[in-house]
C-alpha cells in the first residue's frame, strides 16, 4: 500500500512503486482533470504540484511522491487568481492542455509575483498547446499577476 496526500486528502493505493504518479491520480484516485499527453514529459499536460513545484506526473514514479504534498487542478481553489484569470480571458479552446498550463502558471506566480513577458515565455515554454492559445495564456498570467498583487 502506498500512502499519498493529494489535494489535502489522504489516499492509500495498492500499486507498484514504479507506477507513474499520473496513472495513480487518474486511474486510482479518479482525478481526471490531470491529462495524459505524451507520456514522455515533453508536453506538460500532466503537470501537478509536488511540494509546491510544478512537475510532470507522467515521469514521477509514485514512490517518489510519498510523504509529499501533491496538488492537482482539482485542488486549486476556484477563486485562485490563475483560475479566475483563465475564465476572464477565456483562455481554453479545446481545453485538453489547460489543467497543465494552469498548474505551471500557478507555480510560476507562487515564485514570482510579477513575472516579465520573457520570464513568462521561458517558464511556460514546456507546456504545449495544440490549439495555439499561447497569447491568451500569457495575457491571463499577466491578469492573474495583477489580481494576485492587489490582494
Amino acid at each position, binding site marked *: 500500500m502506498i500512502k499519498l496526500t493529494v489535494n489535502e486528502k489522504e489516499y492509500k493505493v495498492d500499486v507498484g512503486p514504479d507506477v507513474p504518479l499520473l496513472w495513480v491520480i487518474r486511474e486510482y484516485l479518479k482525478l481526471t482533470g490531470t491529462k495524459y499527453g505524451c507520456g514522455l514529459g515533453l508536453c506538460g499536460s500532466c503537470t501537478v504540484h509536488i511540494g509546491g513545484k510544478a512537475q510532470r506526473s507522467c515521469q514521477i514514479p509514485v514512490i517518489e511522491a510519498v510523504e509529499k504534498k501533491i496538488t492537482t487542478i482539482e485542488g486549486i481553489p476556484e477563486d485562485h487568481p490563475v483560475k479566475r484569470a483563465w475564465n476572464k480571458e477565456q483562455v481554453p479552446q479545446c*481545453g485538453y492542455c489547460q489543467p497543465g498550463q494552469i498548474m505551471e502558471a500557478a507555480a510560476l506566480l507562487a515564485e514570482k509575483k510579477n513575472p516579465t513577458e520573457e520570464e513568462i515565455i521561458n517558464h511556460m515554454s514546456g507546456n504545449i498547446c495544440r490549439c495555439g492559445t499561447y497569447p491568451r495564456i500569457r495575457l491571463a498570467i499577466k491578469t492573474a499577476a495583477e489580481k494576485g498583487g492587489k490582494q
Partner: protein
Amino acid sequence: MSRTVTRREFLKKSLAGTGLTLAVAMTPFGHKIFALGESEKDIPFKPNVWLQIAPDNMITVYVNKSEMGQGIYTSLPMIVAEELDADWKQIRVKSAPARDEYKDPVWGSQGTGGSTSIRHMHETLQKAGAAAREMLVKAAAQMWKIEESDCETSSGKVRNNKNGRSLTYGVLSQKAAQMKVPQQPKLKSGQTKLIGTPVKRVDIPAKVNGSAVFGFDVQVQGMLYGTVERPSAYGAKAISYDEKSSLKIPGVRYVAPISRGICNDCY
C-alpha cells in the same frame, strides 16, 4: 420506423401514460434506456427536441454537436435564445443524446466538423426558438384575452401592451405546452439582440477547473488500455514478436499482431 411520429405526438403519448415509451440515449457510460414520460414529466413545456422551458424559468437548450473548443455550446444556443427572445442568463446547455431527431439536417447523421455546425443548424434552431416563442405568446394572449399582436416579447417575458404587465416564460410554460406547435413559425427580421454581442463561452469553466470530461477521461468497469508498438519506419511490417516476454511485463494482459494501421482506407 414505419411511420413518422412527431416529437409532440411522442411526448403526448408518453406523458399520457398510455404505454411505456422508451428512449435511448448515449451517455459516456453506454446506452441508457429510460421512460421518457417519467424522466421529463416535470418539464411541462418541451415544444421540440431542441429546448425545454421549466416553471422555474430555466431554459435548457440541447446541442447536437460536439464542443471541440470552437464555441458551439455557446453559439448554437444563442441562435435559439435569439429567436425565443430569452434572456441569455436563463439558458442552460445540455449535450443532445444520440437520436434520429438530432441528426444534422444536411448530413443526415450526427457528426461535427468542417466548420459546418452553424451553417447546418442555423435554420433548424431559429425555427425551434421561434416556434416556442409563438406558443408562449399564444398562451399569454389567451390568458389575458387579448390579441397576439398586443403582446411583445423580450428577455424571457411576454408583455401585455394593453396594460404593461408581463409574465415570465416559466410561468407561461404550462399553458404554452397546450398550444399547437406551429410548423412554419415566423422568424425575426431586423436587428438581433443577442447575436453579435460578446458572450462568455459556456464550456470554459469546466475546462478551467478540470471537471470537463474528454473522451480519454471516460472510464468503464474492467476497461483496459490498448497501445500500439509502432515501426521505426513508414511502411515497415512486423516480422516477429516475443509474446511470452511481453506478457511478463506487469499489467500486460494480451499481445496481438496487427497487419496494418488502425484504418486501412482513410487518409
